Structure formats: C-alpha cells, structure tokens
C-alpha cells in the first residue's frame, strides 16, 4: 500500500473531490476487500461486499470522521455492512448490531473450491485457520492482529466490553496458533 496523506485525502473526499475519491478507493481497495473476505470467505462475495462498502462510504462521505477516528469508523462501517450482507444472504431481517451468537449462525465457514486452491500457500493456511475460529474470536483477531487496531477500538467496533476483548483475544490467539500448527502438521504429513 503506497503511503498517502490520509487526512488530506479524507478532507478532499468530504468536499466531494472526484480524484481524491479515486485515490481513496485505489488505496483502500485491498484492505476493504481483505476485511470483506474475512467475513464471507469467498472471493466473489467479498468483491460484491467490498463494493457495497465503498458505495456506502461514498454516500456518507460528507459525514466522514476526521483525524484518528477515521480508520476505526471505516472498520465499523465495513463491519456493519458485512454483517448486513451476511444477514441478507441468510434472508434475515437486518438489525442494528449483531450479537456473538448471531454472528456464529451467520458466518458460512464451508470452504469453496477456490478457497481450497488458495489455501495451498501459507496465506491460505492462515485464512483456513482463521475460518476455523468462532466468529467473535475471528473478528477480534482480524481487527486486532491483522489490521492493527487497538483493544479499545476493537471493543468499540464490536460493541463488547474491553475486558471481553482482552480475554477473547488471548484465547483466540492461542486457538489460532493451535489451528495453524495442526494444519501445518496435517500438510507436512500428507
């Protein structure tokens, strides 16, 4: 990801600057797509979802938060959109916030043929291990360890207590490490 002057880009996008919006899309497309992929686990669905997220961002660009609050807000928008997308895929009525149990039901963890091919490399192995986590643990690891948000920001985005994020993050990392080791062993044996 090339470095950009994010505050300037955000300000120009808020003012309706077309080239700034294009720069924003090109800069964040990989990140938004990766986040969408972590929710839906399928490249085609992730592309549609990422486009929806960008459309939502474009529609609300006049209300973008400025400064340090922008990235957490972007992730919150992307997360809410992803949950809504999963709900629609399951033909469910959208609601404001998805709880932990609901997320467990929403996420489809069955790997597709494409994802099986992708999992042939190390990244694919990590994705496979992530998909094996529970939905809330996966969200915490993705937001905290993959995208580098702080514990407070993760708690705010997921609307759960700070202590829950800390304890969950600890257990989720251990669980992920176990799954990675298990998958690695399984591949080396085959």
């Amino acid at each position, binding site marked *: 990801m090339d470095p950009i002057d994010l505050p300037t880009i955000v300000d120009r996008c808020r003012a309706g600057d077309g080239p700034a919006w294009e720069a924003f899309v090109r800069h964040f497309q990989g990140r938004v797509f990766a986040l969408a992929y972590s929710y839906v686990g399928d490249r085609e669905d992730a592309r549609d979802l990422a486009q929806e997220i960008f459309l939502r961002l474009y529609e609300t660009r006049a209300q973008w938060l400025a400064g340090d609050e922008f990235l957490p807000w972007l992730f919150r928008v992307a997360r809410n959109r992803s949950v809504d997308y999963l709900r629609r895929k399951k033909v469910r009525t959208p609601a404001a916030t998805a709880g932990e149990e609901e997320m467990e039901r929403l996420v489809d963890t069955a790997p597709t043929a494409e994802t099986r091919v992708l999992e042939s490399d190390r990244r694919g192995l990590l994705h496979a291990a992530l998909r094996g986590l529970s939905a809330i643990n996966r969200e915490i690891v993705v937001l905290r*360890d993959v995208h580098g948000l702080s514990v407070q920001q993760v708690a705010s985005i997921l609307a759960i207590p700070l202590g829950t994020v800390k304890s969950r993050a600890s257990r989720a990392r251990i669980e992920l490490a176990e799954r990675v080791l298990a998958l690695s062993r399984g591949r080396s044996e085959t």
Partner: protein
Amino acid sequence: MIASTCDALRAAVIDPLERPGGGLTRPDVAAHLRNCPDCRDWLEAFRKGTAAWETEPSGALADRVMAATTGLDDLLRELPALAEMDPGPGFAERVLLATSQSPAPDGWHTRLAAAWWALVRRPRFAWEVAYVAIVCWVLIFGNPVRAWEWGASTVTAAARERLSGPVSELGADVESWRQRWMPGEAQAGSAPPGPRVENPVVQAWQAGARQIERARASVVRIMEAAWTGVSGWIRRVVDVIFPPRTEPDAEAARSAQ
C-alpha cells in the same frame, strides 16, 4: 537466568496477549518445566485456580501453552500480511463506475437539485405540467371554452336541438316495441309525465363553471387591487427619485413678466 526464565514463562502464561512467547521456544519451556519444580507447582496451581481453564483435560493446558508460546511470535508477525488482498483486476474501476452513476447528495441544495431532476425525468411530468397549467389558466382567466362561445351548455343545447327529432323518433319506436311485446310492463312502466329535469351532468358542469367564474373574478379583483397599489407605490418612488421639474415653468413665468 533461571529466575528470568521463570518470570518469562509465567508472564507468557498469564498474559499471552501482551507477552506472546516471552522469548521462549518450545524446547526451552519443556526443559524448564522438567527442571523447575517451582514452575511445575505454579503451573499446576494456575491450572487449578484459573476458572476459565479449569475444564481443560489433564495435560491440555501444557499443550496449549506450548502452542501459544512457541508459534505465536511468528504467527503475530505473519498476520498483518493478511490486511491486504488483491481484489482482482478492474475492481477499483468497477467501484468508481458505480459511484459515478449514483452521485451522493452533499448539501441541501444538491439534494434539492437531485430531487428536482428525479421529478422532471419522470415520463408523466409533461402531463402534470399541462394539467397544472390548465387549472391555473382557468382559475385566473376563466374558462377558455366559454370565452370562445363554445361552452358545454352551448354544446348540449345545440345537441338537444339537433338530435331532438331522431331521439323522439327513436323513443316512439322503442315505446311501440314495448307495447307490442311487453304490454303489461309497458303499462306499469308508463309513469305520468312530470316536470322536465335537467341533465345532472349539465347541472354539475354549470355549477362548476359558476364557481370558477366567481373564483376568477375574485382573483382578477385581487390582482387589480394589488397592481393599483404597486403601481401607485412605484409612481410615488419615481416621483421621489425623479421629482418633476418646475424650473422651466418659473423661467417661463419670469420671461413672460
């Protein structure tokens, strides 16, 4: 060295989130647990005392600690690489095309303009404009059909006059047919002729026309009064700005003297 290894292992067990691995490898941890009875006891006490981990089967905790402390460092270094994925060729263009086709409303003026254009681009907008224009015309200037001496009452009167012959002949034919084929019914249905009743459609039309005429007269009266007031005000303003010249008359009077 031993004390620092104990501290690192315990810190990693207590809070693997903040101190993943504690700098220890899996063989280090295993060797240390074999040689350090304090840490074995501590780990056992930790296992028993930690409510969240009480349900772990015997030996599972040690395995989990191993997994967490040995592979976690590398894993945490690898995870940020997943923050970006290539969405494939043409994705940004697709997004930009979608957003260019649906411009987002920024302020109230943009929203107003967008709403106006959405209204104008509807197929029936021309019909609506024509309807509103005709209503306004009739309210202000009266019924143009009547003004051309071709109102509905004129039409109905002309139609009644022209069609009276054929209609009465047709009525006589129908009456004779009824008397021939349904004599009882014809007698029962033949009511005595009463006063002539005007067609209700024509009555409604005439009543509406009278209402419209009254409304038009009111509007015209109001507009005339308003124009009189405005024109008087304009005249006064013009008089103030450009006062009527009196000097030439004075000079003329002096020259006459």
